């Protein structure tokens, strides 16, 4: 049995008199102790609803869940003591200073900053020079570090991080994931959600999510390794019309923009020469192509369409 378990969890929301939205449609997974597990999916996938059920802030409408052996409905008091939760929206006290926020959260959990300082030291030293500053006056990156420190100060067994890197630039995102790796080494189980597909590779295992369902669960390598077809990466001088023309190629099951190149999912077999002449006939020049290794975004796109 894992440290965090979802067993056919269901959540509805009422949106009108007789209308409901099914935000979580019977999701199951099992997260092992010390694992860094990612929920990867766009807005509306059901990630936040899952977090709120696990942190006992929402009651499920069906199914069950366990956190460190405690039931998410019956044992809500026990769970609240042993989990740390960083919500998607900044929820610390804006009018308290950095150190006041930290002390407040330590006190709530009957502990002291000093007792668990070793756990947050790496993160907190970066904002310590501003400890007298009100939380509301911090930059985005500093708010994020303070929120993580507050979520950790009672040494939780499981850490729930809801989209900690949304709207954060590529540099700060990288630093945040480095912090998570260090926390993982301390034995903390981490459930983290993100809409950035490239962050999946940094997790031990991920659940790809869309519209309240899981599309796939596994290690990033297993998910990308299971991609059943060949992908060609192609570029040419005129990228926009290239994409249009690739849609018309008979061997292309799907084609889409992928950064510098376009990706083409091949239906049956690859014949690069045939494709090259097809594109030359369409008037394309400087055509370059190579066989690409599928990544999580390729898998996600494929799963969304099937």
């Amino acid at each position, binding site marked *: 049995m894992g440290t965090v378990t979802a067993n056919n969890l269901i959540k509805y929301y009422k*949106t009108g008199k007789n209308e409901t939205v099914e935000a979580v449609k019977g999701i199951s997974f099992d997260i092992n102790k010390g694992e860094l597990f990612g929920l990867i*999916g*766009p*807005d*509306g996938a059901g990630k936040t609803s899952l977090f709120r059920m696990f942190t006992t802030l929402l009651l499920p409408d069906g199914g069950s869940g366990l956190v460190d052996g405690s039931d998410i409905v019956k044992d809500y008091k026990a769970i609240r003591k042993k989990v740390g939760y960083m919500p998607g929206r900044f929820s610390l006290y804006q009018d308290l200073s950095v150190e006041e926020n930290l002390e407040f959260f330590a006190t709530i959990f009957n502990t002291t900053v000093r007792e668990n300082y070793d756990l947050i030291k790496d993160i907190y030293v970066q904002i310590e020079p501003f400890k007298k500053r009100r939380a509301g006056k911090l*930059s*985005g*990156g500093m708010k994020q570090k303070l929120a993580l420190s507050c979520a950790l100060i009672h040494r939780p067994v499981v850490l729930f991080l809801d*989209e900690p890197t*949304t*709207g*954060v*630039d*590529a*540099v*700060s*995102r*990288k630093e945040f994931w480095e912090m998570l790796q260090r926390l993982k080494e301390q034995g903390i189980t981490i459930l983290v959600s993100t*809409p*950035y*597909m490239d962050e999946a590779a940094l997790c031990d295992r991920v659940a790809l999510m*869309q519209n309240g369902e899981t599309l796939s669960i596994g290690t990033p390598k297993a998910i990308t390794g299971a991609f059943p077809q060949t992908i060609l990466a192609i570029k040419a001088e005129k990228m*926009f019309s290239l994409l249009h023309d690739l849609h018309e190629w008979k061997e292309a099951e799907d084609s*889409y*923009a*992928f*950064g*510098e190149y376009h990706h083409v999912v091949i239906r049956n077999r690859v014949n690069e020469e045939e494709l090259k002449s097809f594109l030359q006939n369409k008037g394309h020049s400087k055509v370059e192509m190579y066989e690409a290794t599928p990544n999580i*975004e390729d898998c*996600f*796109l494929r799963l*969304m*369409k099937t």
Partner: protein
Amino acid sequence: MMITEKIISTQKLTKRFGDFTAVDAISFEVEKGEVFGFLGANGAGKTTAMRMLCGLSLPTSGVAKIAGFDIYKQTERIKGSIGYMSQKFSLYEDLTIKENIRFYAGIYGKSDSFIKEKTNFLLARLHLEKEGNKLVGSLPLGWKQKLSFSVAIFHEPQIVFLDEPTGGVDPVTRREFWNLIYEAAATGITIFVTTHYMDEAEYCNRVSIMVNGKIEALDTPSALKKTYGASTMDEVFLKLARNPG
């Protein structure tokens, strides 16, 4: 000879707050119809710079012309010539799609006949013909984003400013969104876009990277990769933007 029209041009554009210089003498030009990526780390000064370019905040010093209008004296003319899409969804959820279009187009002083004709065209383009009288709040997120963009360019502005338009959007919608961007650019609308997705930086004609209030690099994605010896824009960004604070 091809004459390129500069739709945005700035010289040493600067904004200070007290003794903090948020935007530090940036000089650059954007051509008409260009898809221009405006990148930088959080706190690098992007939002402050964008606010000046939109005529919402007066510079401390420097010069700039936006769509031919002076950034100090003609801010109202600038506002009339641009479109803006914020990272927060800003259509009215309790108005229908048609009502939202009518409202925003009305603000820009468009005639009833213009609005009527173009609304039908827009709904057809987005495959929303049957949804025109539905409340915007009831639409899926992906449609909301595409609708927001279409509303931002409905009054046929010369430039549209997009502030992280694809945050939290699924990979399919993100690509559909970029198709809309290219279509708009092909009609001559200049696109000025910020994003945290580095693959999207590749979709821009040119990209600037701001670090500590200054524009540290500005070129085509392929030239930037060459200059910084990087294989992806992500690497270029990390090399340039990794700065303290």
